[in-house]
């Protein structure tokens, strides 16, 4: 059936402009979402496999992370320096990263080196060497990072927060591992990781750039075609965030305390997700206008950075906020944050705030589309979250239809000031850990 080379199943306009997402299926059946952009002679691709660091075996925490840093350190006949030299000299980017729920990659090449670039990527995915030299070297770099983490307020805070949130779940484990667990990882562990986890069934691909669907189909088959269909067995259960208003103080000799606070929130597939997005924007979202920004920073000068975010993981959802303030003002800052949490939970919200939040969330979305790689990232996220190929067109509708009633309902459901778990790293005055 050679003549049906590539299926283009849908063509969709975005914001009346030229971001048309095409669903490309290669002759071998590999799917990618593509935005053609022939303005510049380059191709950007991002892709991810299901399962991230939460699937690392007990005692081998940090395996996915170590694999992500060593897969591009030699493959096929090419040792580490030859492989890296090929990438650098031809300005090819191949970079892997391990998240909690996904194992992801960024790839970018000039059109003129396209064949070579995809070949190097194929090698990294299918025949990584994991030679002793690069693995030892990367382990020593990771170990140095882990030691520094012991003094990094943000890392310490997020670890403690997750430890409290997930007492018996893989999310509490350290994505980069511990000194002992990283040392325990063998070459065979890395080989098994690649064999068991990089499988077609969970692969999501986004491509943007100077490439036609037909050509992309060829490249996809060549690059990914030899991967196994199914990943090895894995089971990570859904989990509810365990937040009951506990406070943890990690004493460090710092002038400024780092504060993290949070509790459960909606998952990405929650029907209330969009209402929660609007709610979060009003409470602590990313412009210079949120309630926390205004009350903590603008009016009182308590902190330089303060804000909240939704964290929709695959198996759970969270709302987490952060602030940094002088040790003597931590209590005051936390009081204000809790008061704002409560105020919104009780439904104190007007139409203007809702409208402003909605126009911000819809209006700022296209601002992400400023490079080929950034757009490819959006295409992958759409697939990971089952948002549909028409999501770019539908998103504004999802946001616009959120009502005052929705936000009040979602705020009452999710915002529980008394349940906020708080971690403070520093020497906060008058604050002690919960018993």
């Amino acid at each position, binding site marked *: 059936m050679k003549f049906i080379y590539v299926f283009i199943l849908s063509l969709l306009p975005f914001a009346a402009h030229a971001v048309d997402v095409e669903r490309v299926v290669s002759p071998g059946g590999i799917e990618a979402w593509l935005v053609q952009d022939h303005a510049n002679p380059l191709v950007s691709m991002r892709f991810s496999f299901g399962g991230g660091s939460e699937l690392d075996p007990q005692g081998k925490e940090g395996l996915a992370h170590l694999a992500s840093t060593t897969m591009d350190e030699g493959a096929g006949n090419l040792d580490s320096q030859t492989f890296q030299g090929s990438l650098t000299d*031809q300005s090819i980017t191949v*970079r892997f990263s391990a998240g909690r729920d996904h194992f992801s990659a960024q790839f970018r090449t000039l059109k003129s080196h396209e064949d070579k670039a995809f070949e190097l990527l194929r090698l990294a995915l299918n025949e990584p060497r994991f030679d002793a030299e690069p693995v030892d070297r990367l382990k020593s770099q990771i170990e140095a990072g882990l030691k520094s983490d012991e003094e990094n307020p943000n890392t310490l805070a997020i670890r403690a927060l997750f430890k409290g949130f997930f007492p018996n779940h893989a999310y509490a484990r350290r994505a980069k591992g511990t000194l002992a667990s990283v040392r325990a990882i063998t070459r065979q562990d890395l080989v098994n990781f690649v064999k068991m986890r990089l499988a077609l069934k969970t692969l999501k691909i986004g491509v943007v750039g100077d490439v036609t669907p037909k050509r992309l189909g060829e490249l996809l088959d060549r690059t990914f075609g030899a991967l196994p269909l199914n990943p090895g067995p894995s089971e990570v259960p859904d989990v509810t965030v365990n937040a009951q208003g506990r406070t943890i103080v990690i004493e460090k000799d*710092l002038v400024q305390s780092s504060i993290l606070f949070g509790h459960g929130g909606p998952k990405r597939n929650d029907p209330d997700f969009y209402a929660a997005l609007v709610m979060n924007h009003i409470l602590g979202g990313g*412009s*210079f206008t949120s309630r926390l920004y205004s009350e903590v920073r603008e009016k009182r*000068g308590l902190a330089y950075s303060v804000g909240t975010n939704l964290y929709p993981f695959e198996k759970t959802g969270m709302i987490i906020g952060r602030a940094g303030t002088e040790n003597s003002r931590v209590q005051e800052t936390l009081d204000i944050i809790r008061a704002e949490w409560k105020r919104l939970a009780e439904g104190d919200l007007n139409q203007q705030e809702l409208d402003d939040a909605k126009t*911000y969330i819809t209006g700022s979305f*296209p601002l992400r589309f400023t*490079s080929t790689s950034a757009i490819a990232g959006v295409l992958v996220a759409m697939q990971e979250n089952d948002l549909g190929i028409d999501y770019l067109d539908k998103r504004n509708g999802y946001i616009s239809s959120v009502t005052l009633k929705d936000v009040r309902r979602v705020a009452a459901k999710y915002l529980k000031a008394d349940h906020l778990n708080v971690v403070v790293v520093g020497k906060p005055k008058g604050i002690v850990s919960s018993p």
Partner: protein
Amino acid sequence: MKKLLAVLISISVLSACSTVKRGGVFDPETFTLDNGMQVVVLPNHRAPVVLHMVWYRAGSSDEPQGKSGVAHLLEHLMFKGTPKNPDGLFSRKLAQHGGQENAFTSLDYTGYHQTVATDRLEMVMSLEADRMTNLVLDPKDVKTERDVVLEERNQRIENNPGARLRVIANQTLYPKNHPYGRPIIGWRPELAALTREDALAFYKANYAPDNAILVIAGDVDVANVKRLAKKYYGTIKSEPVQPRRNLVTTTAIKGGESILKDARVRQPVWSQTVLQPSLTNGDNVRVSALEVLNEILGSGGTSRLYRSLVIEQKLAISTGTYYDSGARGDGHFVFYASPRANVDLDVLAKAVRTQAQKLIDQGLAKGELKRIKTRMLSEAVFARDEMKSGAWAIGSALASGHTIADVEDWPERIAAVTEQDVIEALKAVLSEPRNITSKLLPLSNTKEGS
């Protein structure tokens, strides 16, 4: 691996521009308004989005003696309001329209930028033009914002041993009272004493159309930008601004070593910063040679330093060089390395020096120069891919007293670099007396087992 490098060598405290890759040919359109405001337009039609930036030729190095931090404090205060747009209305309006914004202060310039849907460009221009000369400051707001900046200082410097060491090292690297020798965010006592009047004085002295550059990148056409620029910025009265002071130094410095020992340091870092020409000195051949040298010696996981110290000798977990040619004053060339367990920093320093000397003694390998140049020149294509790259590269060049040609001719200058140029540049770096060594060390000297 790259990420780790970035964490260990993260250098500039506030200088937002040092991370922007120099691009190549962006083909900008440029014109100057009657009041002296320069305008640069970089059309890019990928998405219906536009980046709007105003750069002032005024940074922390333009502050009066004793008022360190005032350029950056003013940057914060610019969000407070004007008679037409009081009480933070700027940010509220912008957010209502889905716009994103921020601002930055560096040694040499201050900038304000917004990214919005193309059809909101006019609104943003009217807001930004309004606050160029109509800022109103309430003393209470100034006091509160000063507290915010003190918290920012805690976050960026006090809580970060590496940043504290850089402050100490810069103070030693530049002659007494040289503005590059003080932190952009200011000395704490001076910052804490800044007043509304200090901020307004700096504003009046520096914020004027003839001291500003408008850069617009994205889904726009030049004629329309010209019309809007005339309408909003063209009507602002020009204000002659004092000429900027000369920042290039020739004086000898104390030099030597800056050492910071801190209980929170778990991974030591060594670096050596050497003053070198920037584009300001006019020696563009030397500047380009230093850029190529940086690439050969210390850029990425296949560079000479990385290969020798990290892979072959296993002395370091990371090492490299970087070079900043964009400053209005002197540029600097930096060597850095972070050791494997139980390796002394002096051993690292010596190994770096040995590799540099080897390059002088043996010259480049066959084909090395061509390979390095090819890969540098490819960066131009990637730079054009990102909407903001051209705006940042050209904005920072113009605000630092450099020219559009300095940016646009970059590929030709790199292509013209010879092996001789590279070796001469390296010799100049190694023999430059104005340099300082920095050592970041754990508090205790107990050796850690690996």
